[in-house]
Structures are given as structure tokens and as C-alpha cells.
């Protein structure tokens, strides 16, 4: 299997490369970077996996039709590049337009299989009740606008893949990771809370935090790339995930002391409804970042299943305890340097 990974220099992309090599990928592995590979990355891979056939390539995925050559001789594409920040239009462009350009080029190059790294944000979870289980059978958001700019972009990206699959007959596999964490990643997911100066507003409470350690998530992607049947979808989440409250307590203990303002679930729901009203009344003076729809979608105490991943042979390599320890240690180190 000759594989190309887009966004191979990103937080997750780098680990996908390692997982594929660890899994025994010895055929061509072409790595796409926006401009160039992170310093020392290629060298460290060659040292660690001397048998690997690695080819770094640079391409601007927004430049439609300009990067067909990177797909020459490739049969499988893992599309991990996406916009993670910025204004809504920028996030959309970097996620959806970049994907459209990639899928088009895949069609021209005769790529057989596309593995898309999507997100939990595309699952339509608003209607789920406490205790329900989120698994691969849960449907997608119809549009995604109600889930905010990131959710909208990722939802549109998946629908775009379906359109191209019909057109080109791609074999597609979609992985929807929960909160990816690890050294190099973010500190506090909005599911846990919002950090404002020396305060943290705790939002998630006893709701389970759908964590996936970056190495485990990358293993799942590597495994699905080589073993999942076409058309399959996988939520990606680790086995033993903590509650949002437990994660926050670990963060406060090991990384940074902050004052905590805990918002009870009923107050959060009321606050979100108030914020939407205020947003309308004030003509947008405060953005409606939390709406009742988002609160129901992200903060209902549901459970998560990774059985579909286990059925294709994935196992959690790094325990959640170990993953949290490594992450907190790295976050603490970064904070001390700053």
C-alpha cells in the first residue's frame, strides 16, 4: 500500500506517520507538509525506522490543481490536514476547500482509498439522553452550522467526501476522533472549561471527556487505513476516559494552579439560553459561543464506545493514566519555559 498523508507535520499527522511505520509500513510513505517538514522530523524517522521509504513533499492545498504530482503512484491517502483555528471563513477554506482540492486531485490520479480524519463534532448528539452510548451508528449533523464554525467545516468536509466517493468510486474510511490530547496538543478542551486569566470556568463537571491520546488515535487511524472495510466510520476514543472534572483536577494539581468557578449543568443551560438572547438583543456585542444546542450536544452525560475499532484489531497502547501523566508533564514544562 503506497500511502500519502496530508498534514503530516501536524500534532496528529506526525504520530500517524510513526504508527504506520510501527505497524510495518515498508512501501512508499509520502508525507505532505504545507511548506516544509518540522526540523529534525524526517531525520528522526529515518533513524528510528531505517527500512522506511519516506518522501517529504510540500504543497499548498488551497492552490487548486497545483499539486497533482504529489499523488503520483499513490493508492491510499490519509487526509489529516484541516483548519483548526481562525475565523469561520478561514477555518472553512482550510478544511473544506483544501479537501475539495485534494479529492479532485485524488480522482485525477486514480487514488483508490481515502481515509478522512473527521471529528466528533459531526455526530448529531443533540437528541441523546444521559447514559446513551455514542458509537458509529449515530447519524451526522444535517448541516453543522449549529455546532459552530469548526463543526460546520468538518461536517461539510464529510459530505464533500461522500459527493466525491459517488463521483470517483473511492473506497472511503472515516475516523472521528474525540478530544485528541498529548504532548504538543492543547491544554483545556472547551468541554472541560474556559480559562480566563487566572480563573477557569468549569463547564463539563461529571460528564465523561471523550479523550484519545494522540498515539492511540494515530494507531487507530493506521489500523483503519490497512484493515477497515470501505464505507466504515469509527468514533475514536480511548477505553477509560475520565470525567471533565477529574481531568481539570489533574490539570490543576500537575500543571497550573487556577481558581475554579464551577458552573452547574442547570446554570450552564440557563446561561446559554441567556447568551443567545443577549447576543440578539445587543446585535452581536457578545458572540453566542454557547447555545442551548451546543450545550445539549457536548455536555450531556453520555458514554462512548470504541468497539468498532476493536473489531478491526485496535487496542489502546498508552493507558489514559500514562497519557495524562505525559501530557501534564509536557504542559507544565511549557508553562515553566514561558
Amino acid at each position, binding site marked *: 500500500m503506497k500511502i500519502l498523508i496530508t498534514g503530516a507535520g501536524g500534532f496528529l499527522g506526525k504520530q500517524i506517520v510513526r504508527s504506520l511505520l510501527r505497524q510495518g509500513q515498508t512501501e512508499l510513505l509520502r508525507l505532505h507538509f504545507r511548506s516544509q517538514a518540522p526540523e529534525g522530523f524526517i531525520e528522526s524517522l529515518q533513524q528510528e525506522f531505517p527500512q522506511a521509504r519516506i518522501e517529504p513533499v510540500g504543497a499548498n492545498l488551497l492552490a487548486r490543481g497545483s499539486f497533482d504530482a504529489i499523488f503520483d503512484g499513490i493508492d491510499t491517502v490519509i487526509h489529516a490536514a484541516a483548519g483548526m483555528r481562525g475565523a*469561520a471563513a478561514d477555518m472553512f477554506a482550510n478544511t473544506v476547500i483544501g479537501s475539495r482540492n485534494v479529492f479532485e486531485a485524488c480522482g485525477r490520479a486514480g487514488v483508490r482509498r481515502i481515509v478522512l480524519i473527521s471529528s466528533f463534532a459531526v455526530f448529531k448528539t443533540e437528541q441523546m439522553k444521559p447514559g446513551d452510548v455514542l458509537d458509529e451508528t449515530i447519524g451526522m449533523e444535517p*448541516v453543522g*452550522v449549529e455546532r459552530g464554525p469548526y463543526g460546520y467545516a468538518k461536517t461539510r468536509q464529510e459530505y464533500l467526501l461522500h459527493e466525491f466517493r459517488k463521483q470517483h468510486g473511492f473506497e472511503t474510511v472515516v475516523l472521528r476522533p474525540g478530544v485528541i490530547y498529548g504532548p504538543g496538543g492543547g491544554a483545556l478542551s472547551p468541554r472541560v472549561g474556559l480559562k480566563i486569566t487566572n480563573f477557569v470556568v468549569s463547564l463539563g463537571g461529571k460528564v465523561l471527556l471523550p479523550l484519545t491520546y494522540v498515539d492511540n488515535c494515530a494507531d487507530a487511524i493506521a489500523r483503519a487505513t490497512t484493515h477497515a472495510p470501505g464505507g466504515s466510520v469509527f468514533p475514536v476514543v480511548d477505553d477509560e476516559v475520565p470525567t471533565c472534572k477529574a481531568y481539570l483536577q489533574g490539570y490543576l494539581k500537575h500543571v497550573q494552579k487556577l481558581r475554579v468557578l464551577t458552573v452547574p449543568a442547570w446554570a450552564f443551560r440557563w446561561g446559554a439560553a441567556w447568551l443567545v438572547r443577549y447576543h440578539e438583543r445587543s446585535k*452581536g456585542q457578545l458572540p453566542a459561543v454557547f447555545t442551548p444546542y451546543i450545550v445539549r450536544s457536548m455536555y450531556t452525560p453520555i458514554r462512548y464506545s470504541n468497539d468498532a475499532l476493536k473489531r478491526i484489531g485496535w487496542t489502546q497502547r498508552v493507558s489514559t493514566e500514562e497519557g495524562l501523566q505525559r501530557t501534564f508533564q509536557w504542559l507544565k514544562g511549557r508553562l515553566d519555559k514561558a
Partner: protein
Amino acid sequence: MLRIGIIGCGKIADGHVEQIRAIGRGEVVAVCDREPLMAEQLAVRMNVPARYEDAAEMLRRERLDVVHIATPPDSHLFLAKMCFEAGCHVFMEKPFALTAPQARDILALAEAAGRKVGVNYLYNFETPGLELEDLVQRKALGEIVHLDTHYGYNLSGDYGLAVMTDPGHWVHRLPGKLFHNVLDHVLAKVVPFIEDDPEVQVLAFRRREPTGVALVDGMPDELRFMLRSGKITVCGNVSAHGRPVPHALRVVGTRDSVELDYTARTLVRSSAWSAPSSVGRVLIAWTQTRRLWANARRNVGRFRRHEFHYFQCMRVLLDRFYDAVEGRGPDPVPREQILRVCQIIDRIVDGVNASNPATPQEAA
């Protein structure tokens, strides 16, 4: 209600749609982008009824009164001409045009068509900018002697990263690159105080480390310039490295001086050393504190009245532009000021290229 269309569905288009709706004098009936997915995302997110990838088709079908053009500046002349021919007024995103001659053409086309053309020099309509206008009209500062204009940008931010990592970004097509995209904001505040054809001196250089990419490394990121127009001088500082990112103006008059902070939305008049000896010097800081406190109270009042939106200044500007469109008021930014900004930008860009001889060599 005015029927309004938007051409160019990038991130600033959100601000236009929100402020048009906040004003309530027009309805955004259509959006257009030659990238259909971008038109789709704006129409879907903002619930706009129609979307197009062809501006001519939008103009033909939608019978628009006003078109907001929010595309890169190399398309402004072409699109403005099309809009005027369709009988529309045009509100232009900055930079107004790629060059001063193109700006002159756009203004002439508007004149010939009998249509209004505005430009998003929004910071002149921030509260401190409006207060300054009032002080100057009342001659409270005396004669203006000098202005210091400071503007910063963060190359590590989303916009900076996009420009630095994408050689195809439209900013690279501007004659003045990074500076060209912000100089409107720097100059629009000072052109009301100076005449055409000021003397211009420029210094520009790259402070960041090289990346090895010639196109990117060829862009200077620090700019200083000086203008002299008769008895008035202007110093400009455009910086990618100064922190906090500055956005300020100091106006020195023969009677009094003021400092405007556009981020904090404050205008503070200076305090003279009026009481005797060292006691007098102690009082100065207290006087300044009192004045800053008054700014803080006014800002809280504005917040309570819902007049503190990030784009409140655009809201004020657009409201005045629509007044002009409906014949109820003057152009919020006079045409001669738009042209003066563009002319000075051209002169500064020439100076940047002259003071930065490494640029063509590195780019080659």
C-alpha cells in the same frame, strides 16, 4: 430597505453582513464569490437567500442598490466598474485600490455614474476617532503640529501565518506586500490633517529570521515613515514585533495634545505641569488617572447601550454611508481623502523598495 449584495466571502464579509443587519437599513439579499464553496459557506452560516459565483449574474438578477466589495484589491477596479454600470453604489473594503491611478479611475467612474463610493476606513469612526474629530472642529487642540500613528500586526496570528506560509496568498500580489494591506488604517487617520503631495521619507527592514523561502524573506516587517505637509509632520510606525500590538495615535497641537488608543477605545488629553514645583508633578499622574477613569466609565456606558461591538466603528461608518446613498448626508470619507491615502501608499511603497534593496535580490 436597501437591497445589498456582497462580493467576496472571506472572513471580513461576516463583519459586513452583521453590521448591515445591526443597522437595519438594508437587507443582504445575495453573496458572491468566484469560489462557490466560499459563497455557500457565507450564505449558509449567515442565512442569506441567494449565492452566486459570477458577479455579473448577481448584478443582473438581484437589482441591488448597494454592493459591498470585499475581494483582494487587484479586482476592485474591475468589479467597481461592473457595479456602477449596473447602477449600484459601492462600499469598498480596504485597500481601496491596487494603486493611486486605479483609485482615481474608480472615483471617476463613480462620479460619471452618479453613484456613491465608500471605503472601509473604519477606525476613523471608533469612539476616540469621533471624539478627536469633535475636538479638532472646536479647535480645542489649537493648530495641529504633529501626529504619531502606530499600527502593529502579529505574524504569528492566523493572518500572519497564512501570509507567511502561502506564497499564493493575495497579499504577495500587492506592490507593498504586508504593509500595503494595513497602510490604509495607518494613513486614513492622518490624511484629514495634511494636504496632497507631502514630503515622504521611508525606512523599512526585515527584523525576523530568514526562512529560506525567497518570496517570504523578501518581505520587510518593520516600517517607519515620516511625512511633512506644510507646517504639519507625521511619523508612522508599522511593526510586526512590538508588543502589545499597538494601535494608537498621538496628536500634538499648539494648545493641547491627545493620545488615542484604538484597542482600549480611549482618548486622553495631556496634562500640563500647571501647579508649582514637585507637588505639581505629582498631580499630573492623578489628572491623567482621572481622565482615563472617565474613559472607562464612558466605555461601560457604551457597553450597556450595546454600542461596544468589535465592529461598532464599521456600524457608524456604514450608517453614514447609507445616509450619503439616500441623499441625507455627505460622504463619510471624502473622495479626496481616499485618493490622498492611495497616493501616499504608492509613495511609501516606492520608499520601501528603495530602502530595502535586499528585496529584489533575495526574491530573485
